[in-house]
């Protein structure tokens, strides 16, 4: 059928008929909306698309997409994704997980799906709290977090998802927030990437961890606290776009742009983002805006949003299929009688 005859799908055509049951005001709505917009932008074939999730608030996601979906068990979505892709590499598979699902109970699988580079669009909803079990701290919660399970403050040091993803060998690592203008483009870049596309999305849980990312998403504060990464562009940020990041030796530092004669730094001296440069990506992954109780950024750094890293690398399921194809080419398609008769056979006479 020629492409022109295909119906053009609208974003709402990707919504299922099920009522969405997240809490009113939850950041998940915006992410669902963004996913449907990306699907529309790419005109994804609904019948070839599979959304797979684990357990948690975010993992209800597949029920709300008018595609194939699999709401699996806690932490194990990467296993299902891998099985689906190995069985049918042509499917377009998305994985939805959260900070608990993906980095606590499912931390092991996260590492392995990324290193295998299974072709999946992996959305990590990071709200730094356990929502579905009603408000315990999560592995990404800041140390000292007071919750029902940690009335005196949490003791464990948080895990950093983008750092882990890079260390595990993810071929695409990006970050955005539920309210950010960059969410759709970043998600779309991930969807277009062939391989494991890891997209961390800071997501507000307005019930159990409200305003966790307020400084990164608030209209008045965002531009000063976020640096948008663009491939080939210098790291400039700030409401007045007057700040940048440069390297002093191996140490990044925030500088004010301006005439060097009057104490400013020239744009040419800033770090130019190169999303193919893994050491740079790993450094950027360690930069975070950190806020005190009054909303002051005590680290001094902006939070990098956008694509930290992207590389082309063979996908696991492609390699699996190549081995199958090569074996068939070399030996011919399997013949059961030849299989049975292989090895030491012997005849017992009548």
């Amino acid at each position, binding site marked *: 059928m020629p492409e022109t005859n295909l119906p053009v799908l609208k974003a709402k055509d990707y919504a*299922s*008929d*099920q009522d969405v049951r997240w809490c009113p005001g939850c950041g998940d709505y915006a992410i669902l909306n963004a996913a449907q917009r990306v699907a529309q932008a790419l005109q994804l074939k*609904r*019948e*070839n698309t*599979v959304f*797979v999730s684990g*357990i948690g608030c975010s993992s209800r996601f*597949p*029920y709300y*997409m*008018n*595609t*194939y*979906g*699999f*709401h*699996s*068990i806690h932490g*194990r979505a*990467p*296993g*299902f*994704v*891998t*099985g*689906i*892709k*190995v*069985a*049918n590499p*042509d*499917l377009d598979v998305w994985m939805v997980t959260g900070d608990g699902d993906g980095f606590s109970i499912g931390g*092991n*699988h996260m590492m*392995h799906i990324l290193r295998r580079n299974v072709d999946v669009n992996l959305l990590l909803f990071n709200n730094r709290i356990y929502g579905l079990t009603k408000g315990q701290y999560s592995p990404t919660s800041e140390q000292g977090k007071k919750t029902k399970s940690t009335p005196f403050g949490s003791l464990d040091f948080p895990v950093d998802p983008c750092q882990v993803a890079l260390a595990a060998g993810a071929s695409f690592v990006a970050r955005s927030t539920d309210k950010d203008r960059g969410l759709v483009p970043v998600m779309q870049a991930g969807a277009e990437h062939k391989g494991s596309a890891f997209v961390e999305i800071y997501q507000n849980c307005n019930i159990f961890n409200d305003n966790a990312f307020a400084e990164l998403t608030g209209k008045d504060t965002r531009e000063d606290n976020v640096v948008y990464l663009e491939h080939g562009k210098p790291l400039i940020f700030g409401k007045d776009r007057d700040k940048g990041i440069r390297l002093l030796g191996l140490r990044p530092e925030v500088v004010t742009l301006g005439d060097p004669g009057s104490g400013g730094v020239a744009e040419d001296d800033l770090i130019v983002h190169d999303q193919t440069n893994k050491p740079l990506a790993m450094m950027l992954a360690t930069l975070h805006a950190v806020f005190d109780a009054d909303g002051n950024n005590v680290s001094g750094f902006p939070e990098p949003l956008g694509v930290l890293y992207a590389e082309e690398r063979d996908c696991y399921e492609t390699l*699996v*299929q190549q081995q*199958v194809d*090569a*074996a*068939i080419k*070399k030996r*011919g*398609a*399997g013949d*059961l*009688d030849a*299989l*049975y*008769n292989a*090895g*030491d*056979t*012997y*005849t*017992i*006479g*009548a």
Partner: protein
Amino acid sequence: MTDSPANSQSSTLAPEPLRSVVVRFAGDSGDGMQLAGTQLTDTSAIFGNDVATFPDFPAEIRAPAGTVAGVSGFQVHFAADDIFHPGDKVDALIAMNPAALKAHLADVDPGGIVIVNDDEFSKTNLKKAGYPTPEGSKEPTNPLDDPELSSRFRLYRVPITKLNQAVLKDSGLDPRSVNRCRNMWTLGLVFWLFDRPLDTTEEHLTETFAVRKKLPAVAEANIKALRAGWAFGETAEIISERYHVEKADIAPGLYRKVTGNEALAMGLITAGQLAGKDVVYATYPITPASDILHNLAPMKHFGVKTVQAEDEIAAVCMAIGASFAGQLGVTGTSGPGLALKAEAVGLAVMTELPLVVVNVQRGGPSTGLPTKTEQSDLLQAMYGRNGDAPVVVLAPRSPADCFDTAIDAARIAMTRMVPVILLTDGYLANGSEPWLVPKAADFKKIEVNHPDSPGSASGAATAANGDTGDHAEFLPYQRNENHTRPWMVPGTPDGMHRLGGLEKQNITGNVSYDPDNHQLMTDLRHAKVEKIAEDKTLVPDLEVLQGDASGDLLVLGWGGTYGSITTAVQRARAKGHSVSQAHLRHLSPMPANTGDVLRKFKQVLIPELNTGQLRLLIRGKYLVDAVGINKVQGKPFMVEELESMIESLVGSAASA
């Protein structure tokens, strides 16, 4: 190559005929005992005997040499009659060092042959094996000097190490390589003792070392050692006895020897081909199941995709994902792995997807006895999940039966949309027997239906649900007359649907917390499994395999105990007892006639290598007051254990 001695010259000592012989080779893990045993098996099978084998490995890969922990054994039973098990008592033990003697002597039949490598009974080796040093002495006791040993057994002390070295002194091999030929020297002696030809082994050595590994000198040395062992038996006149086991009356045809794990792998490949599916085998290495992976991994030209997952849980999830995507998802493991997979198997129950889980049982609980056999995962397979989560459970009864059972498991899983757990065990997995090579054309196709549109799925279900059919929306839980839901595969236009672990409304598949619906779905999941037993092509009736359909005693077994039970019942019947035998291959659902078969007997005896798991099921399900004989020693039943239990029961029945 010159003719081997067995072909060119006949022995001067005429062999005595025997109906069956059990030989066990025992030595260090590195002594090549598995190879020697395999060669005796192959030679006997090709000669025309019935054969059964049982390897016995230590759990450690290379435990310290010379210690009891490091002893590796291989038992071969070859016979002129049909045999079903590797033998209770050893007729001839070959012990390559003191530790091997210590570990295995207890299993030798009183009066049996014990051949030892005398050279290895040094002070050091005796100490390593843990033979005590008597007070006032500096040297440990040498058990070979104990007159008790010579009076209880026909003990032959052969300086195997030195004799082998002497033969190979001009071979050009280093001393270590020379010593590695001792197993072949010993095998040559065993071949002489039991009147076996050498040609099968010589061909194997040539093929392995000269052709494949390009080591002609090693091939030549091994063959030389083999012949020297044979010649030693013939000329040294130390051993004044020889035996011959005639060909068995085996159905004519083409055979090959298979282990359970090999047969199981071939069964899975066959099932994939019969269904027109790729086999996606996702697994995590675990003893004694890893060989299934090793056998499947090279079979990519059959569309077999193997994935070595990061853990047991990922493995089962990958298999379920593969099934959701429309291929045959299989995972394999042993007991501890099945425990880890439990939650995911429950998801397969809930999503009603096909899944085959192979559990090669081993001694438990926990890490237990990794290399030893046991049947103690039956209840785990039946019930080891949260919630009411019925699955299908099958158990093959012999190594070759693993082939057919794997096909049956896949057939049930894919045609009834249900997870199937296949329970083999370490004994079946590593044991071997002759397998009548089948013809691919003789197998029935596995008819799998994937709807190509929403309407085609509901159309099939119309009659069962009183539905008018033809839906714009696909209804994932619209069931047919077998309560089976459609296997709609991603990629199918308009078939979009969402599965998951949350309870679903019947027919529509929407998330549902409705109490009545949960009751209905729980009942349907049970009914779906039970319904399979109504199809006798899937679950044949329970047959009485030996004996009358009613009588004093029925011995009911399942799984790998079949061989020992068969022989024990044969013997009891030969003595005139009213004993019959039946063997359950389908543990869930059980054959429809199971209760009727059991109730025709005054007593039911259930032998199991566990503490009574099938007995609990049978008593609960059929209210039959079955008794058990139970053993968990990491070893199969001995026929005589079963025989004496049978006699104690039919004796008491007669006197009651």
